[in-house]
């Protein structure tokens, strides 16, 4: 088939992991295509060296088949993220023993927060927005409801991009808490 739009739906990460565990090497190539550049970015953030970052990505993927057999992995993406980050921290610890390992697997936003926000009706959303502080409200409105970029949101609100991202994170969390309250609650 020569039309790209007609290619089959890609397998999920978890399907690929299952196949990799049974020795299907082509699944490793598919995971590489999805994640090598992301792991590289994470490694660059910690190691600040392109060659060391590339080596780390190669090392992680080389060990992946064995690690997946040894560990019970429910959601591959956050597990891989933590694995890569810990490998980086291990490298850094060789130079600075005070560097601490990160055992926490960060959940994706989608698990709770995004689901609540996605399903909220407009009226409740507006009511909840009014209860946020000014910075969070302005950033949430500009970024999510008016679909502006970080930069445009920053220009409009007068905040820096870092402040915008902080307001978005805190604002989302507060919105979720407000939206999850029963309707009769104050």
């Amino acid at each position, binding site marked *: 088939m020569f*039309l790209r739009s007609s290619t089959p739906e890609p397998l999920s990460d978890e399907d690929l992991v299952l196949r990799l565990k049974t020795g299907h090497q*082509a699944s490793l190539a598919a995971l590489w295509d999805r994640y090598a*550049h992301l792991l590289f970015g994470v490694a660059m*953030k910690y190691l600040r060296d392109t060659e060391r*970052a590339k080596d780390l990505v190669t090392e992680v993927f080389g060990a992946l088949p064995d690690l997946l057999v040894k560990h019970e992995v429910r959601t591959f993406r956050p597990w891989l993220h933590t694995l890569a980050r810990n490998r980086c921290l291990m490298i850094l610890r060789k130079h600075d023993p005070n560097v601490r390992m990160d055992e926490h697997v960060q959940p994706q*936003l989608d698990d709770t927060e995004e689901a609540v926000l996605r399903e909220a009706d407009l009226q409740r959303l507006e009511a909840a927005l009014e209860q946020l502080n000014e910075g969070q409200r302005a950033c949430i409105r500009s970024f999510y409801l008016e679909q502006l970029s970080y930069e445009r949101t920053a220009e409009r609100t007068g905040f820096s991009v870092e402040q915008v991202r902080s307001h978005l994170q805190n604002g989302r969390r507060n919105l979720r808490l407000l939206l999850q309250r029963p309707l009769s609650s104050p």
Partner: protein
Amino acid sequence: MAPVSPFSPRSPLPQEQLRRYLAGELDAAAQHQVELHLEQDPLLREAVEGMRLPGSLAAMEQLHNTPPPAKSMSSGMKIGVVAAAAVIIGAVWWYASRPEVGVAQQASNASTEVAPAVSKEQRAAFAEEVTRAKALPKEMRTGAASEEPFVAAVHAKRAKKLDRTKEEVVPIETRTTPIERTGTDDGPRTLDRSPSHRQLLFLHDLKLVDPSELYPANPLLSVRTGSVEARFSDAEARANAPSEERTIGYADFMNEALGRFVAGDRQACLEQLFYLMDQHPDDVNALFYGGLCAYELGLHQRAMAYLERANTHRIDTFKEESEWYHAMAVEKAQGIDAARPLVMKVAQRGGFYAIRADEWLSAR
């Protein structure tokens, strides 16, 4: 369709889109879509922090073009592999040093020689042929309109196949790669990569073999400008006229040609691809899409010739499609009986066109 939430990205984030975001090439609306992903994905967020560091984008590109590592080996396995490699290298050296191998190699080279470029007479004949072409009816043409009814059936069949855990999964060749423009053209090279690792390029959502698979350096192609075409009253005069030419890179050339294809202008597309084949007769992309255009224009002999070459090309990226459309061109040119064994071969192969082949055989 469920309304799109402003809190969710509309679609998955392609790697190329991420690269363009980091390079500052996206407009504000597209930036926002990428940033929706950043807001909900801690891995992506941390990765982007690292990707913004100097040298990251170039290193990422190198990584992208590197195959994944093989499974880590034990030292015992490594010794075994080295020993086996030594035996193989020794055997190859012994075989190559035999005097009769040189002759065999020459014969082999002769059989893979590229077809000669077209003559002036052939160009004139082509121009005449295209001018008089009678296009196939719409329902018989290639492309999305005719392919889509079969897509759901193929997906269902593949999904059923993938349920069996031991079944081999067909690799998905969807990787794109930017084109390096070096400006030299030394002709095609011999390739030894397997089809599952062929680099592809998609233009207008149409599959192409990346020129890096066909040429040692991205070729600059001569393109006739449209003003030449308009000045002349007939095909012969046009073919004999000195051409006003400009040169452009391969991807830009194909982008123009395939833009004409998707716009429905098969004649203009074929003319442009014919011009490409004049310069590179063995270009598999031109052979395949030229074959499709010729088929749709009712130029069945030409379609058969191009599609047969695309089908048997050393790069087999278009093998499945070429085999099917070659069979269809044979049907048009020589009749059902001549096409039947070719269609049976497609049906037995079991690929994307097997369903269509089965339907064709049932109906005849």
